[in-house]
């Protein structure tokens, strides 16, 4: 047989012994720590990545929270301002209304008293006029009744006018 394809006993023996030894020693002292280190590092990297992702999400939620708080604060301010304005407006409005009312009332009072005064004055004028008229009429009648001639003429004229027919 060709020596190339005839396995030599010596080499077979040494190959088995050496290879098993190499396999054992490398497995125990090289591959095991290396694989463990690689695994550990990959786990670390995975962990770090997931932590970063988590931090990012937290950051986002924090930011959203801040935004929300800010918005709330803004809304609150808006509300307070609005309320204050409203209250101020209300106050002014109330004061104005009250002043108006007071004025109105005073005017009304004034008007009423003027009216009363006027009425009283008028009544007085009327009474005075009546008294004057009665006085005048009394004086007139007194004077007329002194002249008989004239009395007769007047009765005559009335009668004519009545035209008793």
């Amino acid at each position, binding site marked *: 047989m060709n*020596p*190339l*394809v*005839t*396995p*030599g*006993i*010596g*080499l*077979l*023996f*040494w*190959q*088995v012994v*050496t*290879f098993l*030894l*190499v*396999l054992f*020693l*490398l*497995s125990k*002292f*090289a*591959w*095991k*720590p*290396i*694989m463990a*280190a*690689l695994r*550990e*590092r990959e786990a*670390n990297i995975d962990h770090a990545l997931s932590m970063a992702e988590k931090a990012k999400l937290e950051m986002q939620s924090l930011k959203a929270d801040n935004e929300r708080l800010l918005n709330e604060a803004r809304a609150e301010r808006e509300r307070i301002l609005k309320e204050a304005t409203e209250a101020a407006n209300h106050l002014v409005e109330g004061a104005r209304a009250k002043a108006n009312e007071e004025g109105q009332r005073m005017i009304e009072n004034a008007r009423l008293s003027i009216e009363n005064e006027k009425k009283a004055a008028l009544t007085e004028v009327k009474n005075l006029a009546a008294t004057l008229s009665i006085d005048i009429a009394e004086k007139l009648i007194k004077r007329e009744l002194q002249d008989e001639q004239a009395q007769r003429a007047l009765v005559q004229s009335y009668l004519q006018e009545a035209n008793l027919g």
Partner: protein
Amino acid sequence: MKKILVFLFALFTFSAQAAESAEGEKFSPGDMIMHHVGDDYTWHFADGVVLPLPVILYGEGKLDVFMSSNFYDEHHQLKPYKGYVMEHGHIYYANEEGEPKVVEGENGEEKHAAPLDLSITKNVASMFVSVLLLFLVFFSIAGAYKKRRGQGPRGVQSFFEPIIIFIRDEIAKTNIGPKYERFMPYLLTIFFFIWFNNLLGLIPGGANLTGNIAVTLVLALMTLLITVFSGNKSYWGHIFNTPGVPWWLKWGIPIMPLVEVIGIFTKPFSLMVRLFANITAGHIIILSLFSLIFIFESVAIGPVSVAFATFMNFLELFVALLQAYIFTLLSAMYFGGAVEEHDHHDDMGHGDAPYAVDAHH
């Protein structure tokens, strides 16, 4: 960089020359190539730069350990030593004349008597170097992971980390599924073992370890054993009672179980042959290109050979990685098949859905 390349090629050609001078007068490319892709008792880096390796022999109740340089005299000629003799790259018992002892085999044929040879050959030595490298690299990386816990990779660590993660995510996770973790040590080990040894084999003077059938045999055997021992009920059910197959092909004429059982062994067998053939072929091509220089006995062919060999070397660098990847990927796929929880009502991607429906209703 350029200087290094030039140096590498010089080394490569020198070792080819060395082979020539060792073989004698006539240059035989076949012998030189077989010598280079095969195993050896010495590590021949370049002409004159030879590292003798220990020879370990066991036989007839005694263990002999000595350096392979004992087989050579001062003129680099082979000689018997301690009752052993080396011939054609094998060690046999020597007789009185210093020739290999001839004994009768079991079937009556004549053969050389050989002891059990557990020598640290060039391939074994190269494997030890690669193991040393593997330990050096990955223990230091493991240390870096412990020291710089939770931090990013640095230096060598950042070179190997993507590869390790690729094997985990693209090879193991995709092909094995949720139970991938228990196969990770094996997958990582074979990937880096094959890759490192492929690369070491490309260095001029390096051994052709992953192109040796014994090595790929052991690696494939490991994959086979792990597959078989991690096979779950549905894996064995698939083999002995393949869903979607008419009953008479399973119980009447047991073709399907037979085919499936053969399939258990052909899968790792293909792993063994693929790695062996790819790596050896690459070495043979590069060596053949250099042999052209000596066949044509012309300096003019040198640049052409070097250009082609450079191209081939880059291709082999890629093949070194590719074959390691393929071996690991296919192993992962076999493991995935063994631990997968099959739902017997779908067609499992075999395209036999209509039959499966018939079989179940």
